[in-house]
C-alpha cells in the first residue's frame, strides 16, 4: 500500500474507531520506538501501531486486518532478541503493553491469571505475599512480558531446575486471526485433545494472539546458597558441571563465563570475580536447611575435585547478590568493551562445550573479532557475544556471518540454532540448516491450520523453501535431496 493511500487512511479510520483515544499511533516520532525489538540492528518503520486496552479491541483489530489483508505483528515489551517483533512495513504492530493487569493470584490453587502485558517479575512480586513465586526468570524479567515469554518459550537461570515457560503455563486464552476465541486449560494439570498449550509456547506470535495466561506458582525455597568457582581451564569447568549432575544433583542454576566475559563483568560490576580465571562457574542451590547443607558439601567437593582453584560460598542474601551481580551485568559489561556486540543464542550438548568454544576461538581469529562467552551450563544454552564496531566497514556483516557459522556449528554437534531467544528474523537462514524441506513444509501446514491467510507475524520463524534454496545451505537428511523441483547447474 502506498503511504497515505486512500486504503491506508480508510483502514486507519476503522482502527481508530475501535480503539481508545490514545490507542493508535501514526506519527513518525511515535512510531520510532516500535521499529525494532531488542535486536536493534534490524529495523523497519511500521505503518501503524495499535495499542488496545481490552480483548474486544484486540478482536476488532484482528477482524479489520483480516478483512483487508493487513499483516499483524504482535508485540509484548519489545525486549526480544531475534527480531520477532520487527514490524511489517505494510502491517499493524499490535502492541499489547496496555493489557498489563494481574487478573488473579489464586493461592489456593497456586496459579496466577494474567493479561499478556504483565511484566515477568511483577508476577513473583505479586505472589510473594503468599510465599509463592513464578519460576521462569529470563534476564530481561524486569521488563519482558508474560505474553512475550509465551511467544518465545523463555527460560532463564532457574529453568534448569524449574523448567521453561511451557512447563509453567497451565492455561491460555488465544484470539486467532480467523476471529475465534480459544481457551485452553486453566488451573488444570492437563487438557483434552491435542496439546495446544505446548504448540502455542514458542510460536513467536505466528499462530494466535494471547490475551490471557494462567501460570503455575511454586512455593519459595526456604534457603539459597550461591557458589562461585574459578578454573584455570574451560574443560575443567565443563567437567565440574558433568560431575555435579552425574552425582544426581540438579542445581537451581549453573552459569559459566569465559575469561573475556569475566574480565568485562569485573571491570564493570566489581563483583570480586577472578580476572585470571579461564572460566568461572556460578552454582545456585536451593532447598530446606538440612538438605542444603549436605548438597553444598557435595557440590563443594565436586568443584574442588575438578580443579576449582578458588571457591566462594555465599549464604547471606547480600553476598549472593554480589556474586550474581557480575553475571547479570555480563551483557552491558561486554558492551563496554566494544561499540557494538552481537548476542548469539544456541544450544549444544554440554559435553561439546570445550570443542565448540575452541571452534569459536578459531572463528574469532579468522574474522578478527573478539568473542566473550556466557553459558547456561546446566542446559547447554550458549550465548557467544561477538564484539564489533558497526562504524568499521564490513564488521557488522562479519559479525553476522560469524554468528551464523556458530549456529550452524551448534547444529553440527547435535544441538539447535536457538535455545531461548527464538528464530524471529535473525535465524531464518540457520533454520534452513537445521530442518529439511519436508519439515519446513510441515511447519507451514501447521501454521496454516491456525492462520490460513498468513497474516500473523509473516516472514518470521520459519524460512520459505525459496529462501533456503537460494541460500545454498541445504540440509540433506536420509539421503533425500531437498527442493528436488529446483534445477541445479
Amino acid at each position, binding site marked *: 500500500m502506498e503511504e497515505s493511500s486512500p486504503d491506508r487512511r480508510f483502514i486507519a479510520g476503522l482502527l481508530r474507531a475501535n480503539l481508545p483515544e490514545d490507542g493508535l499511533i501514526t506519527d513518525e516520532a511515535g512510531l520510532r520506538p516500535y521499529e525494532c525489538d531488542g535486536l536493534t540492528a534490524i529495523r523497519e518503520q511500521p505503518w501503524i501501531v495499535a495499542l488496545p486496552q481490552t480483548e474486544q479491541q484486540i478482536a476488532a483489530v484482528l477482524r479489520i486486518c483480516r478483512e483487508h489483508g493487513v499483516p499483524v505483528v504482535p508485540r509484548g515489551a519489545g525486549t526480544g532478541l531475534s527480531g520477532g517483533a520487527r514490524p511489517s512495513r505494510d502491517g499493524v504492530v499490535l502492541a499489547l503493553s496496555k493489557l498489563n493487569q494481574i487478573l488473579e493470584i489464586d493461592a489456593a490453587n497456586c496459579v496466577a491469571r494474567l493479561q499478556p502485558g504483565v511484566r515477568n517479575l511483577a508476577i513473583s512480586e505479586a505472589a510473594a505475599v503468599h510465599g509463592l513465586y513464578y519460576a521462569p526468570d529470563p534476564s530481561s524479567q524486569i521488563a519482558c512480558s508474560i505474553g512475550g515469554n509465551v511467544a518465545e*518459550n523463555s527460560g532463564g537461570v532457574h529453568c534448569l531446575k524449574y523448567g521453561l515457560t511451557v512447563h509453567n503455563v497451565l492455561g491460555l486464552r488465544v484470539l486467532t486471526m*480467523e476471529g475465534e476465541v480459544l481457551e485452553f486449560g486453566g488451573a488444570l494439570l*492437563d487438557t483434552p485433545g491435542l496439546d495446544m498449550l*505446548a504448540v502455542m509456547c514458542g*510460536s513467536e506470535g505466528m499462530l494466535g494472539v494471547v490475551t490471557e495466561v494462567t501460570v503455575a506458582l511454586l512455593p519459595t525455597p526456604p534457603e539459597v546458597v550461591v557458589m562461585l568457582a574459578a578454573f584455570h581451564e574451560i574443560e575443567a569447568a565443563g567437567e565440574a558441571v558433568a560431575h555435579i*549432575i552425574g*552425582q544426581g544433583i540438579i542445581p537451581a542454576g549453573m552459569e559459566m563465563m569465559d575469561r573475556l566475559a569475566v574480565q568485562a563483568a569485573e571491570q564493570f560490576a566489581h563483583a570480586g570475580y577472578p580476572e585470571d580465571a579461564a572460566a568461572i562457574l556460578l552454582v545456585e542451590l536451593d532447598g530446606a536447611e538440612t538438605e542444603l547443607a549436605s548438597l553444598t558439601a557435595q557440590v563443594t567437593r565436586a568443584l574442588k575435585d575438578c580443579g576449582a582453584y578458588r571457591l566462594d560460598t555465599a549464604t547471606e542474601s547480600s553476598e549472593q547478590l554480589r556474586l550474581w551481580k557480575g553475571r547479570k551485568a555480563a551483557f552491558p559489561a561486554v558492551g563496554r568493551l566494544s561499540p557494538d556486540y552481537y548476542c548469539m543464542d544456541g544450544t549444544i550438548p554440554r*559435553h561439546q562445550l570445550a570443542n565448540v568454544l575452541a571452534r569459536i576461538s578459531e572463528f574469532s581469529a579468522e574474522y578478527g573479532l573478539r568473542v566473550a562467552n556466557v553459558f547456561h551450563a546446566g542446559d547447554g544454552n550458549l550465548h557467544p557475544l561477538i564484539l564489533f564496531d558497526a562504524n568499521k566497514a564490513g564488521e557488522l556483516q562479519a559479525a553476522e556471518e560469524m554468528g551464523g557459522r556458530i549456529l550452524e556449528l551448534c547444529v553440527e554437534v547435535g544441538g539447535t540454532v536457538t535455545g531461548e531467544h527464538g528464530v524471529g528474523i535473525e535465524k531464518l537462514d540457520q533454520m534452513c540448516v537445521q530442518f529439511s524441506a519436508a*519439515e519446513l513444509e510441515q511447519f507451514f501446514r501447521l501454521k496454516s*491450520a491456525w492462520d490460513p491467510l498468513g497474516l500473523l507475524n509473516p516472514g518470521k520463524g520459519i524460512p520459505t523453501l525459496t529462501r533456503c534454496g537460494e541460500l545454498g545451505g541445504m540440509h540433506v537428511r536420509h539421503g533425500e535431496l531437498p527442493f528436488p523441483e529446483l534445477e541445479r547447474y
Partner: protein
Amino acid sequence: MDRVARIVEAVNDARQSRRGLSIAGSGSKRNWLPQTDGELLVMNEHAGIVAYDPAELVITARAGTPIRVIADELSRHEQTLAFEPPQFFASGTLGGMLSAGLSGPARPWCGSVRDAVLGVEMINGLGERLTFGGQVMKNVAGYDISRLMTGACGALGPILQASVRVQPARDFSLTLRFALDAGAANELCRQLAGRYLPLTGTWWNAGLLSLRLAGSEAGVLQAAESLGGDRVQPGNLWQDVRDHSAPFFKASDAGVEQRAGQKLWRIVVPAAAPMPAAQDDDLAVEWAGGLRWWWHEDASEVAAYAAACNGWAWSLGDQQPIDGSHRSYMAAIKAAFDPDNIFVSAMNLRPSDAH
C-alpha cells in the same frame, strides 16, 4: 532393532490403497482409549535404546522399546523418568507412553510426560520422515511438534523414536498416612501446596490419605517431622496407583462385577475445587486434588460437576471431550499432518471437521 523401512513402507502402502492404519504398541492402554478399526501398524519390533548419556540427562530410544527396559537402564545409573509413566498390565512402550500422554502420581511436582519430551522422529500422513526438537531442553527452533505429538494418540502419525529428559532418582522415600474424609484431606493438601516440601505423590480413597515424600534423607525426615501423620510401609501402593492395579480401579475382581452400571471417570479440576457428592468407595483423589477418579452411573452429573469446577471429565474407553471450536482447530492440525486421514486414532479428529 531398526524397522523404519518397514514402517515407512506400511504407511506408503496405506496411502496408496487409501486404507486406514491404527498405530499400536503393546496394547496396554486398551482400557483407556476407544477401539479403532484401522489395520494395525504394530511398532513393537522397532525397539532399542539408541543413545543414553546420564550426564546430559537425556535418553533416546525407538518407539517399540518397553518402558520397563528404559526404566531398568536408567535405574542402573540412579536416574528415572520423573513423570512416572504408567505400565498398565505390566507393559507399555515408549511410543505408547508418549502418544497416550499419561503421567503418574508424581506429575504435579515432577512434571508431565509432555514436559519431558525433547524431540521426536515421526512419519506424517504423507509418508515423510520428520525430526523435530532434539536432545536438548533449551530449544525453540520451530513449532513444538514434539510436545504436540505427546498425547496425540497417534492421530498425527507414528512416533519412530524420541528423546526424553531424565532426572536423578530420589534416593530416599517415606509414606505418611492420615485418616481424613475427602474434604479434610483436600484441605490438608491445599495447605501443603503452599509449602516447600519434598512431596511427590498423594492418594486419597475411602477415608485414608497417603502422602509420599521423596528426596534426600535429611530433607525427607525433616519434612516428615513437621507433617505428623503415621509413617507406613507403602508396599506396592504407589506402583498400584500408577499402574491402576490398586483395587479401586478394578471394575471386577475374581470374576465378580463390582461396579455394575458404573463407568470410571477421570476428572481434572483446579486442586482446590470442592469434592463431588460421591460415595467414599466410588471416589479417589490424586495430584493433591488436581486429579479425581469417580465411579458413577450418571454421565451428565459427572460432566456437570467437572464443568462447574472449570475442569474436564473423561470416562475411560470413550472419546476425550473436545468441543466446537477446539475440535475444528484440532481437526485442522490433524489435516496439516495427515490430510488423507490415513491414521485412525483413538483421538478421533477428521480433516473434514477442520474450520
